[in-house]
């Protein structure tokens, strides 16, 4: 099952290593995001935080774990803790049997998989379309979002992976 639907994102590519690009023509700073959807909301995580993108995986449930933790999975011999982004953001559960994808991030030498509905493209976005969180954002979102990017047709919430993974140990 290794590699099933798994595609490595070239994080080591020199331009995207810092996630920041100087746009040669405009001079504006650009950041590169992996976009994903969770409960129809477009979100983005900085590309430099993403290790892997996985398709549907076999996930072992972990009894007594906090609700946000969907379980753990085997990624090429490493155990990855899967966190359900819907749960984390206080969203309703996905309908039974919906295929989920995950974005793998590393924190403190541990791997975590954020379960999302869909992972889409990689976007390079200029900093001038970035805005801080509107004050009216629901608290769970506000706590885990860095800000909002205005895209042409929709808005993209920038998720702070560090904060998403900072589950209270007593959860």
């Amino acid at each position, binding site marked *: 099952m290794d590699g099933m639907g798994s595609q490595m994102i070239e994080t080591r590519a020199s331009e995207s290593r810092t996630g920041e690009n100087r746009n040669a023509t405009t001079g504006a700073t650009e950041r590169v995001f992996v976009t994903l959807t969770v409960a129809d909301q477009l979100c983005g995580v900085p590309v430099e935080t993403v290790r892997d993108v996985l398709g549907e995986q*076999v996930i*072992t449930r972990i*009894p*007594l774990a906090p609700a946000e933790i969907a379980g753990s999975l085997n990624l090429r011999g490493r*155990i990855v*803790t899967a966190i359900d982004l819907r749960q984390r953001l206080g969203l309703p559960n996905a309908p039974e049997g919906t295929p989920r994808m995950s974005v793998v991030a590393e924190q*403190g030498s541990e791997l975590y998989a954020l379960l999302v509905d869909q992972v889409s493209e990689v976007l390079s976005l200029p900093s001038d379309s970035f805005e801080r969180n509107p004050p009216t954002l629901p608290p769970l979102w506000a706590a885990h979002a860095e800000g909002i990017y205005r895209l042409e047709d929709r808005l993209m919430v920038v998720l702070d992976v560090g904060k998403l993974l900072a589950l209270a*140990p007593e*959860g």
Partner: protein
Amino acid sequence: MDDLLADFLTETNESLADLDLALVKLEQTPDDSETLKLIFRLVHTIKGTCGFLGLSRLERVAHAGESVLVKIRDGALVVTPDIISTVLQGLDRIKAIVTGLATHDGVEPEGDDTALIAALEAAAEGRLSAPSPAAEATQAPAPEPSPEQAIAAAAPEEPAPAASEPAPAKEPAPVAEAPAIKPPPDAAAPEAPAVEAQIGPQTIRVGVEVLEDLMTLVSELVLTRNQLLQLSRSQEDSAFAVPLQRLSHITSDLQEGVMKTRMQPIGNAWNKLPRLVRDLAHEVDKKIELVMHGADTELDRQVLELIKDPLTHMVRNSADHGLESPAERRAAGKSETGRIMLNAYHEGGHIIIEVADDGKGLPIAAIRAKALSRGQASEAELAAMSDEQVARFIFRAGFSTARTVTAVSGRGVGMDVVKTNVERIGGTIDLKSTPGQGTTFFVKIPLTLAIVSALIVQAGGERFAIPQISVIELVRAAGSGSTSDRTESRIERINDTPVLRLRDQLLPLVSLSGLLRLKTSSTDTEAGQCIVVTQIGASLLGIIVDRVFDTEEIVVKPVAPILRHISMFSGNTILGDGSVIMILDPNGIARAQGIAGSDGHIAEGNTKDVVVAQSEQRTAMLLFRAGDRSPKAVPLSLVARLEDIERDRIEFSAGQSVMQYRGRLMPLVPMSGTLDLEKPRQAVLVFNDVDNANGRDRCMGLVVDEILDVVEEHLKVELSGDRPGLLGTAVVDGHATDVIDTAYWLTQATQDWFHTASKHGQRRILIVEDSDFFRNMLVPALSAEGYEVTAAENGVQAMRLRDSGAMFDAVVSDVEMPEMDGLELVRTLRSGGPWVGLPVIALSARAGDEEIATGREAGFTDYVGKFDRGALLASLHQCLDAALAVAA
């Protein structure tokens, strides 16, 4: 050859190889101070080490070589090819000797080095004596700071003698010796090739990372092998089967081999301790003896590294807090020299390391107070805790009861850090503390962290791994609905608590799916369940699972930090089929069940074996019904067995109902007064009274209506003397419950159970006992014997009674009590006053030889085990008779 020498040889060979290179380099670049420093350091190390090892020949040669290098370093000697040659000859000789050491099993080969040494000395002195003829002409270059400058300075003034020609050749005296230089290299030359050939293969130094990588690879290989094996199992007569089998064997051997490369004796972690203890003893002004056993017990390098610091810390603690000052020890009747004992041994795939001291034991009262003040437990909780449980508070974070923070310990690194470190490597730590006798820490750690064997089980549709190490056996259990007559291996329920009869023992059970709050489907009935019997400390616990698969070797990986708080799991792993599985931690499960290694839960076969029952301990109570509807209770520890007997087995003899039980007649006493012979089965509590001293071994069966439950409670009995057979009432499991007076029922069965016949003319007895439970049990028991009994809670109360003028015929005192313990009480009594001559009987849960000796020394007349009523009565008898005789 000892390890030290082997290490030395390995190291020296490496140094010599480096030296060869460095010296050649130095010859080419004489002003390279870095190379010179390196050479000097290497030679100096060799010289120093062989001096330490008593290799005198080697030392002399190395010393001579070093003196030349000193001169070069100090700039007193200019590097010339001849000097380098001489030094190299010295090195060759060193190599020859080192080779000889390796082949002669650590003994230096015979040989004459005088010529070589003379040559080296000549080389060293060459420059110093050289100036004599030239001294007038120039200031000796000796004081010049560097050879380079020496050359520069010397060259213009004197026509190049110093710079171009070797000093020794110029001097008449050295020249005379110079020819002597020649033979040694020739002599040494044939030996030199042998050096590489013989020393190379003995040991090789390998970087730790290389071994670690190797281990990781082997672990992965094992997993892959398992995966392959699993695949091949599903395919009958596959062509791969045979080579796969072979691969499997090789993998196992490889695993073992790699594991071996990482094994080191635990003594390596201890070797700094004697010095540490010596310094500590000095610092804290105590006399300490360090005893180490089992230093050659081997364990994995990684484990060794991780256990080093915790061990050091524990030894430090023992020295600083555990042991008393010589004066205190003298006062306590111990030898002035305190003893710290380290002991390591293998036990079932684990290594047990004991760190013991014979000091004063843990200050339980102080720990209680501290736990309370830190808000780690409420007063009520503390009151319900045994001393053992209280002692474990020292494993909590930031817990140090040391009154003053000394330089030695109490630097914020507490036992909690030790515990964390031990647990990090899959180990456990526990302690045993005896006031006045010391504290022993038990550290149980796995041999290796890399691979463990685990049993794969299923519960609630999920699979889990249980480390094989804690699994004792597997029992297949029939469901409670089963009509099978065999009571063995059938899950029974006391109230809703499942238990299993396992060879004359009640095994507490816990359902894994219940524990982990897993959904159980309706098909998972109790029929056909498996019970994994695990050992946790001294207790056994049965874990009910739905299915047991295979055992598999697994590589334990730590769980993610956000899951570490779930104490049920010790890690996770990837199975052969690639799925992730959680590894259960039986210790965590036991903690969740409140067992934690205490043996209070399991009814022992013999009440005398029970060493619980210290004050304020939670007492396991057996709840049952008899007569009326109200629940009754009896301490489980007093009950030998629970029996469920058929009506037919009840017989009558001399008007008394009896049954044949284990080859003899056991009187049956119906608690409700009459036997309901209509009932097909009778629930019977069996009490067993064994008195080896009197050759007594009797049992009695108390017939009750129904056995309800076993609960653990802090027992506080409201005494009521007016109801025969009942001690009083206590709140058990939230209900007012009658606690039965076992002594009464025992006497009902056999008239002479307590030699009741003799009355004692109202002898007055003082019972000093802090445990409500025992006080409440002893008072009626002794009263029933005709004694007039007064009770005091501790030594202080007893002293108040004495000072208020009360008088008794004998004192029965517990040994361990708060405020003033038994030993202190008896010492005080013996020091004078109206009670100076009273017989004082010690009552203790522990009655080992040492305790008895200490007790007698303190002034106790006799020493009796707490549960041994017969012995207590006999002892009272004896003491009072003796007192009478003296009086008469």
